């Protein structure tokens, strides 16, 4: 299979299907062969659904012949393994659910299925979207296609690795503290965490109710727009789901970034940022300026307390896992078990104060977003860590540039903006006002069209 097909975008695949230059069955068969060849080394997949994929592809071919114009028809995707899939094992990356086959499917899985996507399988996640897959865990950790000795980021680790290696054209991720944007950053792809309530979480395993978001990951911003369009919308099955109407995410992409006001919060986000990350970020700002964006510094004072995010996460995650932790602790991965139990050591008053800090950060951020349309920051302060460092249980939670946008629930995109001297991807983060995913995607797309970072391929 040529790289050209493995790395084709959603629009390219759709165009070639309709010109009869390619068929979904051809593409699916080729990707299944590529998965068979590369995945033993990458460990991106937990389950490959070859029969289902070929059946989906045949149905997509029939729909194409009937003239169906859905842009996701015949597009090969895979789901993070915390998304419930009817009749297909859903492990949550945990020994607790190693053989669980749900009889229901998540809303997002249903929406993508109904849009005509081809399901290639389920992608490894950090255990329960939180713990790292340490050596000896039930499922091996996904590896970064740019350098197999480095982590692909998490918790949507399989999604990041599979996209970077050209095994799928789109994937689902979930993001509680950066689990879409972190792997996007480390794997050199794009991913968007939409506004809290924009995409349904029904049928997706919970980590932290007030921080969890679902969203798409892809190799380009435009592909993210296609995938988000098909997953966004009100869902009564998710109590946090919003009734705000879904906009058109594709049409605004053509409008460029001219006149868009971009704020750069210089406090917090640049603490501990590596020089090559800072340099790539400043270059990205220069590009956005050249494209017509107005860039200025802004300040969100309470961001210094954004680490209260971790307190909320730990308390809510413990609340979700409490019963299993007490009754079947041996089925949790070592280290994750104790990290989850740490949530039981937080008092009600401390949790409440963390939520009050969060409210302050939300209010200050909303105030800043009256004067600017977007916020720009580096997605991660450094490139992907090697496994040797990531697997050290004594390493704490490094300061996150992503968590503030889980606290505030704002739509936030990560996209490639350079490479480190070691050849690992670097990433730009753009965040917008609630439900203004269109503006975020528009700016990201304009930047992407003006640069070539997203066209580089890893050495797999």
């Amino acid at each position, binding site marked *: 299979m040529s790289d050209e097909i493995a790395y084709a975008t959603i629009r390219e695949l759709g165009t070639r299907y309709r010109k009869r230059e390619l068929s979904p069955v051809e593409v699916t068969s080729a990707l299944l062969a590529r998965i068979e060849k590369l995945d033993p080394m990458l460990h991106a997949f937990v389950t490959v659904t070859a029969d289902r994929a070929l059946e989906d592809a045949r149905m997509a071919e029939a729909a194409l012949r009937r003239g169906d114009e859905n842009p996701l028809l015949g597009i090969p995707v895979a789901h993070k393994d915390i998304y419930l899939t009817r009749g297909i094992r859903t492990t949550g990356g945990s020994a607790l659910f190693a053989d669980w086959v749900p009889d229901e499917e998540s809303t997002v899985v249903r929406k993508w299925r109904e849009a005509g996507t081809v399901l290639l399988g389920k992608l490894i996640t950090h255990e329960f979207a939180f713990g790292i897959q340490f050596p000896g865990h039930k499922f091996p950790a996904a590896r970064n296609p740019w350098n197999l000795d480095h982590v692909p980021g998490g918790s949507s680790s399989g999604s990041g690795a599979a996209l970077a290696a050209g095994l799928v054209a789109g994937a689902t991720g979930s993001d509680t503290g950066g689990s879409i944007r972190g792997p996007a950053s480390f794997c050199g792809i794009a991913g968007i965490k939409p506004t809290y309530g924009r995409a349904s979480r029904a049928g997706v395993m919970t980590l932290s109710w007030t921080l969890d978001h679902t969203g798409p990951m892809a190799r380009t911003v435009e592909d993210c727009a296609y995938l988000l369009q098909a997953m966004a919308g009100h869902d009564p099955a998710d109590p946090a789901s919003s009734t705000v109407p879904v906009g058109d995410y594709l049409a605004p992409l053509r409008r460029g970034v001219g006149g868009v006001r971009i704020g750069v919060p210089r406090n917090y986000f640049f603490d501990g940022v590596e020089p090559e990350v800072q340099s790539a970020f400043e270059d990205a700002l220069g590009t956005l300026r050249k494209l017509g964006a107005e860039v200025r510094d802004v300040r969100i004072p309470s961001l210094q307390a954004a680490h209260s995010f971790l307190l909320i996460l730990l308390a809510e995650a413990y609340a979700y896992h409490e019963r299993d932790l007490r009754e079947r602790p041996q089925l949790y991965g070592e*280290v994750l078990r104790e990290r989850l*139990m740490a949530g039981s050591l937080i008092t009600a008053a401390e949790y409440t104060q963390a939520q009050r800090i969060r409210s302050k950060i939300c209010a200050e951020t909303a105030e800043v977003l009256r004067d600017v349309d977007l916020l720009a920051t580096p997605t991660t302060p450094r490139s992907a860590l090697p496994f040797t460092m990531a697997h050290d249980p*004594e390493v704490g939670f490094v300061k996150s540039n992503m968590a503030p946008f889980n606290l505030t629930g704002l739509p936030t995109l990560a996209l490639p903006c350079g490479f480190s001297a070691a050849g690992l991807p670097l990433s730009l983060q753009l965040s917008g006002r609630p439900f203004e995913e269109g503006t975020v995607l528009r700016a990201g797309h304009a930047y992407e069209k003006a640069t070539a970072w997203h066209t580089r391929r890893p050495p797999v």
Partner: protein
Amino acid sequence: MADSHELTLDELRERIRAAGVPIPEKRLAMVRKLLSEALAPVRALDSRTIRAVEPAVKFVPKAEE
């Protein structure tokens, strides 16, 4: 964050006793570090300085047809 905000090992052991969870001795350092990081912003906070912006139920009247 200042060291005075750090969780001591004794404090951690008290919390573990109160919660009744089995955290092995070999993981205490990790849990202490994790919890210290999580608690730091709250311990540094003078709660009187925050406006009453706690999350609360908000009722949005249905728009008139």
